[in-house]
């Protein structure tokens, strides 16, 4: 009888996988973004009319943990990931490692259509589009009530870091810098260096140039030092809560924070303008997500169908209107629904065009770790020593050496 039960169990087990009318489930791994991925998965599951069903799995919030988890799974040829919300900062590395299924030729043109150039560049490695660009958020300068006016800042023109820091210090309010996943410092430094006319990491190979010991690097470091000397905390995970707190005044954060529950109490009182400048133009940190299919995903065709659905105008419109994430496809900004529910567009659209993405190189993660390791803790930051150490450490990391 026990044997019969066992046989039965085996038989049931065998037939469950082979049932001809079972809907294939696509497992979609998403990062810590503010998009309502469960709802988007439902929308596309319904639109597929039984062709597939999307299940959402959450990746770790911390950027290093997320990177480690994905690398371990992908290098082990894990077949349980069908769809991946891939950080734009990982794209070059994963494409170089051969972790991603090549995009079908016929989909490259539709996926790349009307995409912001920076988002497209971040989604491309070695001349090939590696992922479908999805959303790409610029950071903005958020402020509460009339605090900008009281600090003597003219929000109709680009505000310089020096004016911002001095104004905030005079008013006794803080400038918070959001860091959702641990990559905040690198994004900040990268944008400052780019804003000063330099490049943090230039090149994709082992011999990439590191631009911290240049004039632009020093300009960026002096902004950081000025900000820290005025009592700034630097990028932090509780920046949003502190901004909503008693002495909160300014916040540097992506467009999507508008939907963040931590800011619910002050959201109606928040205004925004473009990211502060180092030189003449505003260069905002840009970061986003592309949709990718891992090389060993079992239902590649269905995964691409799902990506086509998730990058469709209707879905992109709903992301922008309901969560404040900024779609990579610029035509989405023109949708009437977006115009009604996404009032940041006059600032974010130019920001996406002028902003700075993290360097597109397979060695970005090691560079970022070396940068964090030399700049943190920020209370020990000094323009004279940190910059030199950091330049050496980042360069050694990219070259694959100990620093």
């Amino acid at each position: 009888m026990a044997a019969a039960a066992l046989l039965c169990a085996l038989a049931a087990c065998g037939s469950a996988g082979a049932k001809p009318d079972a809907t294939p489930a696509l497992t979609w791994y998403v990062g810590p973004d503010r998009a309502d991925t469960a709802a988007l998965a439902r929308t596309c599951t319904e639109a597929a009319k039984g062709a597939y069903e999307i299940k959402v799995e959450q990746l770790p919030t911390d950027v290093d943990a997320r990177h480690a988890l994905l690398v371990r799974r992908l290098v082990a040829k894990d077949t349980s990931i069908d769809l991946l919300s891939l950080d734009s900062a990982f794209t070059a590395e994963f494409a170089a490692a051969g972790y991603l299924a090549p995009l079908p030729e016929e989909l490259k043109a539709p996926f790349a259509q009307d995409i912001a150039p920076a988002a497209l560049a971040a989604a491309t490695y070695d001349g090939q589009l590696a992922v479908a660009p999805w959303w790409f958020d610029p950071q903005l300068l958020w402020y509460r009530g009339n605090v900008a006016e009281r600090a003597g800042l003219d929000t109709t023109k680009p505000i310089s870091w020096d004016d911002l820091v001095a104004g905030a210090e005079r008013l006794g309010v803080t400038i918070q810098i959001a860091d959702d996943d641990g990559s905040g410092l690198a994004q900040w430094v990268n944008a400052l260096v780019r804003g000063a006319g330099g490049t943090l990491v230039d090149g994709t190979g082992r011999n990439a140039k590191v631009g911290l010991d240049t004039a632009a690097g020093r300009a960026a470091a002096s902004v950081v030092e000025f900000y820290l000397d005025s009592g700034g905390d630097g990028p932090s995970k509780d920046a949003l809560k502190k901004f909503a707190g008693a002495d909160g005044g300014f916040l540097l954060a992506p467009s999507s924070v508008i939907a963040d529950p931590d800011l619910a109490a002050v959201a109606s009182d928040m205004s925004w303008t473009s990211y502060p400048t180092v030189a003449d133009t505003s260069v905002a940190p840009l970061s986003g997500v592309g949709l990718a299919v891992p090389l060993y995903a079992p239902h590649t065709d269905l995964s691409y169908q799902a990506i086509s659905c998730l990058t469709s105008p209707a879905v992109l419109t709903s992301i922008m209107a309901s969560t404040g994430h900024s779609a990579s496809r610029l035509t989405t900004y023109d949708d009437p629904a977006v115009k009604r529910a996404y009032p940041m567009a006059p600032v974010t659209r130019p920001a996406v065009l002028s902003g700075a993405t993290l360097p597109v190189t397979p060695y970005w993660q090691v560079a970022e770790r070396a940068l964090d390791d030399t700049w943190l803790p920020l209370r020990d930051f000094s323009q004279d020593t940190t910059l030199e150490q950091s330049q050496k450490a980042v360069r050694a990391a990219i070259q694959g050496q100990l620093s």
Partner: protein
Amino acid sequence: MKGWRWLALPFAVLLAVTGWPIGRGIWLSLHSAPLTNPDGRTFVGADNYTDVLTNRGWWLAVATTLVIVLVVVVLQLLIGLVFAVALRRLTLLWPLTRIIVLIPFALLAVVSAVVWRDAVTTGFAADWFRLDDVGPFGQLVGVTVGELWRGTGITALVLLAGLLRVPSSLMAAAIADGATAWQRSRRVVLPAMGPAIAVAATYRGLDTFRILEGPLLVDQPGAAIRTAPLLVWDTTFSSLELGLGAAMSMVLLVIALLMAAIMVPLFRVRRVV
């Protein structure tokens, strides 16, 4: 030489299970091998070794690790000896008590590391000693105490085994000869315990040398103090530089061999019994 025939197979198996991974490690250590960039893989000869051996941070980490080993092993031997003496006298429920001292060792190292980190940040140690934010160094001390706590029980049992080797007839003879307590422990107990002390010190020393879980748990960007195994972990599993990580492991292996080569003769007490 007839015995060789029977030993050949186990010997071959032993050689295969140790030689193969170490050989692969050595081969890998001669390459620059970024895991996520297979195109970047090149043969670099001894470059990785030059990089490691000339790196200040690496030797600092090695020195940190050796200091931890020294402190932990000495304390474990002392506390373990006290425990062993007490355990020998304890006749009530003795099998149970000897198992109880092993319980900390039965915990995963990472569990004891978490417990001890929390003890100094929010738990009992913070409470008793009124510790305010202990910082990364305080946390490292906390997890090192955790390592000490974890290994003391097993050290005590190894030393107890040595203590039980002291023949009672020899002890009686020493007393009859009028030896003082100090003379008895130095001339009779210690030599008889010698092999046990050597085993305990070498085993705990090499085991503590690969301390990873605690330092990994309390590590944060910009940390001033890191242990050598943590650097190997970081290089291999976070920076994904497999070749460099393999070279570092090989250097650690050589250091471990050196430690053993020093400790084994050092503790080889002349047999007087």
